[in-house]
């Protein structure tokens, strides 16, 4: 390989002095070799090797302190989840319960699986762009952390909640923001507390419109467009095919008028590790 083709990152400067430098090459492995060529010696060595293994396991059985089992649900109190652990996506609210989301939609755009859907208030209280619902689909999330990385306002972070098992898949669709309304910066400019209150509308984790409904609307629009294309004979897919693929996307039939009838908001127990999407009042 010629020098001009070497990836520039392959030889970063500045570390050569610290590290011992390249050395070493191919070494033949033999490993702990048991020569079992002789007959009597073979039996003796074989038995010795077996006893060696039994010594290892015997040492552990003799010392119960080597047990590493954790008694999981009982040790919730002492369980320490690292702060960077990607459990449940959380939406940052400040001390007043205000968020900083400006609906720039970078996270929605960068999410590889489209597991974030943001809806905008039709008519903002203070500005044109105000957050209505920030919807996170845990069922589609791969926990790649990209949304957290790209958010310019540090609104998103991953919390430690890892106990996200539910019996109904639709319960994996969360609304993360505590209220629909303008950002903390705008609200703090309002001197009147009542004006602030009026600008905000509370949201809870399972309030509508859920992402499924939002997607259903998008799908309906796309189906219309596809039908129009098919009528002109330019679409790759037949409307029937579209119907089929649409049916596979959603667990519930579309379209649903009004809020999708998800089961009533399950009271999320506030135990450590549970999904605490509603951590603001």
């Amino acid at each position, binding site marked *: 390989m010629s020098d001009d083709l070497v990836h*520039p990152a392959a030889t970063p400067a500045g570390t050569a002095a610290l*590290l011992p*430098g390249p050395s*070493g090459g*191919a070494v033949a492995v033999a490993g702990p070799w048991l020569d079992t060529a002789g007959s009597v010696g073979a039996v003796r060595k074989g038995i010795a090797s*077996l006893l060696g293994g039994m010594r290892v396991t015997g040492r552990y059985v003799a010392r119960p302190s080597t047990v590493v089992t954790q008694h999981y649900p009982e040790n919730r109190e002492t369980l320490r989840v690292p702060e*960077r652990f990607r459990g449940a996506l959380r939406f940052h609210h400040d001390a007043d319960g205000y968020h900083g989301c400006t609906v720039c939609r970078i996270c929605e755009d960068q999410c590889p699986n489209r597991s974030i859907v943001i809806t905008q208030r039709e008519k903002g209280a203070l500005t044109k762009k105000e957050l209505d619902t920030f919807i996170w689909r845990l069922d589609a999330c*791969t*926990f*790649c952390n990209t949304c957290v990385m790209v958010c310019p306002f540090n609104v998103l972070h991953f919390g430690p909640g890892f106990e996200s098992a539910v019996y109904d898949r639709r319960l994996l669709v969360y609304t993360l923001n505590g209220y629909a309304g303008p950002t903390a910066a705008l609200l703090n400019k309002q001197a009147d507390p009542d004006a602030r209150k009026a600008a905000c509308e509370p949201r809870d984790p399972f309030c509508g419109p859920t992402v499924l409904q939002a997607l259903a609307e998008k799908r309906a629009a796309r189906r219309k467009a596809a039908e129009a294309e098919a009528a002109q004979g330019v679409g790759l897919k037949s409307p029937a095919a579209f119907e089929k693929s649409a049916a596979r996307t959603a667990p519930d039939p579309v379209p649903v008028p009004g809020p999708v009838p998800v089961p009533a908001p399950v009271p999320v127990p506030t135990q450590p590790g549970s999904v605490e999407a509603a951590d603001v009042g």
Partner: protein
Amino acid sequence: MNATVATTLRARLDALPSQSLLGTQEYFVNMGPQHPSTHGVLRLVLKLDGETVHQVIPVLGYIHRGIEKICEHSNYRQLVHLTDRMDYLSALANNWAATMVVEKAAAMETNSRIEAIRTLVTELQRIHSHQLWWGVFGMDLGAFTPFFYGFRDREILTDVFERTIGGRLTMNYIQPGGVMHDIHPELVADVKAFLAVFKPRLDEYEALLSENVIVQERLRGVGVLTAQDAVALGATGPVLRASGVAHDLRKAEPYGLYGQVAFDVPVGSRGDCWDRYAVRMQEMRQSIRIVEQLLDNIPEGKHFLVKPAAKIKVKPGVWYSHLETARGVLGAMLVSTGGEAPYRVHFRTPNFNNLWAVTTTATGGRVADLVAILSSLDLVIPDIDR
């Protein structure tokens, strides 16, 4: 018994249609897609005569997700996290392979701190991966206990990853332009504590499994893959090195900081299951060596050199880069026609190419040998199917 009778018997046996002297029939049996030793949804159709394997026909596709197709619809940042799901035991190396080709294509710079962190975590993950392999290998041979010891020690390392990276299996840590998080302040101490625990444990591993006469009898001379066959069948990584070919991209084309650390490349001589086993055991020790050299020498600097949300654009062309994961050469090919999304992405995965060694090495052996061979190839099925 006189000679005539013996001759007649011989003639009658020779006249039998089957290859077997006993005149038995061959039969087919499905090993997988749900089988404890195929470690996933690999299906092998076996043509057996009694216990003797006459032919192995791998049938793939049970977990094919079309990662290459999905990449065509992702931008250059998004495609990295898909590689976590190929060889999930080498997620960081996979991330790095994708990152490397994107950085090369987009002419992105890195600094020595980023490279040091990448080298360190990838090497830790090589140990991590081999620990799991060792445990599973023991279990495939019928010993249950190594499985738990392997996982017990792997857990320490998983916790180390969890603190720095936030993920335990799928990392998405190595990104174009750097690494997602700077290393955790406690990382160096954690890794040192791990090494202090793990080094004596490695000796225990040897006493429990390597030196065991049953293991040696089960592995020596079984599943011999000659160097010529290994290269012809595209095998790489420990499988190739066990056959006597000292090919390791960490030495041949050093990336990261591999050019600046001292380590040896363990090489086998026979290419049997034992050599593949011994090479991996030695690789763990070599990885420990590399980690120890890097731990105290991580240079200062930034861990991420571009804006996280910055658009990555690549001019038209074809790029290919490859590196050494715990299982062999992982290549990433990127074809761009300009813009923010690749035109085509192809991953040359080590397991897809290593798998085919089983078709030649397992024939003529027993079913139990086949299990040992499969385990010594250390296959991760999602990496075959992608």
